[in-house]
């Protein structure tokens, strides 16, 4: 995404506080996913491309406190497979093996006996993985649930995309990048009282005219 688009996202969404709202939306999605599947836990993991790690961004249920923010290498385990192949996977440990789903168990001690995982896909990009842990043991998995999992993953991917945009926009507002000053100007002008805002807008229009930019209708 270009800085210009980031800037538009920054201004359009009002930015301040929006990342928190989208994070709350992710939390709501995992809560609903957990409730619908009758599962013990559900989480959303985001891909950090710079470090090649998966990060727990939203967690509900078992491991809620300890998992949030936790990272592990993106290339391994079940979540790693889902990430790399962009394909959902449902797996149940029928033999109750303590080594099962080591990537989930790592650092938490919580070993699920069943795991559904779907990729969070936005356009061509993969943003992370949605996991639903420990569905009821006596419930056999069906293709209908696979579809439902996919629907949740699509919804989560949209929320994650919004969250990432808001975070990028926030970084711009905080002054990262040359365009930060423009975003701060827009934010400052919109916060002014009406009379001063009109004067501010006139100034901005003049500036835009001087720079040869078109300024709306």
């Amino acid at each position: 995404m270009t800085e210009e688009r980031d800037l538009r996202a920054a201004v359009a969404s009002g930015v301040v506080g929006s990342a928190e709202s989208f994070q709350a939306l992710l939390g709501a999605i995992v809560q609903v996913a957990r409730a619908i599947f009758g599962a013990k836990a559900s989480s959303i993991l985001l891909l950090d491309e710079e470090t090649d790690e998966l990060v727990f961004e939203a967690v509900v249920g078992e491991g809620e406190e300890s998992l949030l923010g936790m990272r592990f290498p993106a290339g391994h385990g079940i979540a790693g497979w889902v990430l790399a192949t962009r394909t959902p996977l449902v797996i149940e440990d029928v033999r109750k093996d303590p080594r099962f789903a080591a990537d989930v168990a790592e650092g938490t001690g919580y070993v699920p006996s069943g795991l559904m995982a779907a990729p969070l896909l936005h356009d061509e990009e993969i943003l992370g993985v949605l996991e639903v842990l420990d569905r009821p043991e006596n419930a056999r998995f069906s293709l209908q649930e696979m579809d439902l999992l996919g629907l949740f993953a699509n919804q989560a991917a949209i929320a994650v995309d919004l969250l990432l945009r808001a975070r990028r926009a926030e970084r711009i507002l905080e002054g990262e990048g040359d365009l930060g000053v423009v975003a701060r100007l827009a934010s400052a002008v919109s916060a002014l009282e009406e009379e001063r805002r009109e004067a501010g807008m006139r100034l901005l229009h003049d500036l835009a005219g001087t720079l040869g930019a078109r300024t709306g209708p």
Partner: protein
Amino acid sequence: MPEAVAHAGETLPAWSLPKGEVDRIALSMEWPERVTREWAWGGSQGEGVRVCILDSGVEGGHPLVGELESAVSITVGEGDETIVTEDELGDVSGHGTACAGIVRSLAPGCSLSSVRVLGQGFKGSGNILLAGLRHAVEEGYDLVNMSLSTTKKPFAAILHELADSAYFRRTVLVASAHNMPVESYPWKFSSVISVGSHEEPDPLTFFYNPSPPVEFFGRGVNVEVAWAGGRTVSVSGNSFATPHLTGICALILAKHPELTPFQLKNVLYLTASNVGRGE
């Protein structure tokens, strides 16, 4: 053989069929009036058919997998060159072992090889997938099980070319359809055998889909499979329907090694549970 000779001295393929040369393309086998499963793979164990599992690696020696013919790991170097090394890591997730075990359960006599394209981290995984597939095609495997796909459009054209080249070299790619409504490759190419899931418990039940792009449905729900660490787990997904079709293809190719990918697809069609009544 045709008279036409290329500049390099290689014999040209048969682009046309001159009068009087029909014998040249005589088929080496007669198909029965009604193709049955008994004709297609009765008595076959998949002997001698070389199957490649392009995935997360395979745990050789797992009781449900047995020994591997070979296991390599694919990495891409700084100059984009493909590096193929002996794979000593085995399976980094368990998924490849599951696929290998399913093929083995259907075609115990086949030869299994692993080409690991996962586990180097997420970065560059698309290039590694391409390089792995290219390696598998060059190795001339009879069947390549691809229980994975990529959504990256820039890779689509090269994957398409590779899939076509495999098709003409008689390497059959059996590829998982995506479980979610997204654009992904290579399963959407007509030169591969694309597979989705049905919910029936019988491993030899498979259906032809008259509304492609997914061409066949194999067993893919609540399948007990081999997993890394000598384990057994129950899994669901198109990933596991695909090796069921790969295994069935191995049975057919062992009995009828002369089949082209086109003919193999025909045999699958004629023996599908909703076409040949599964007989």
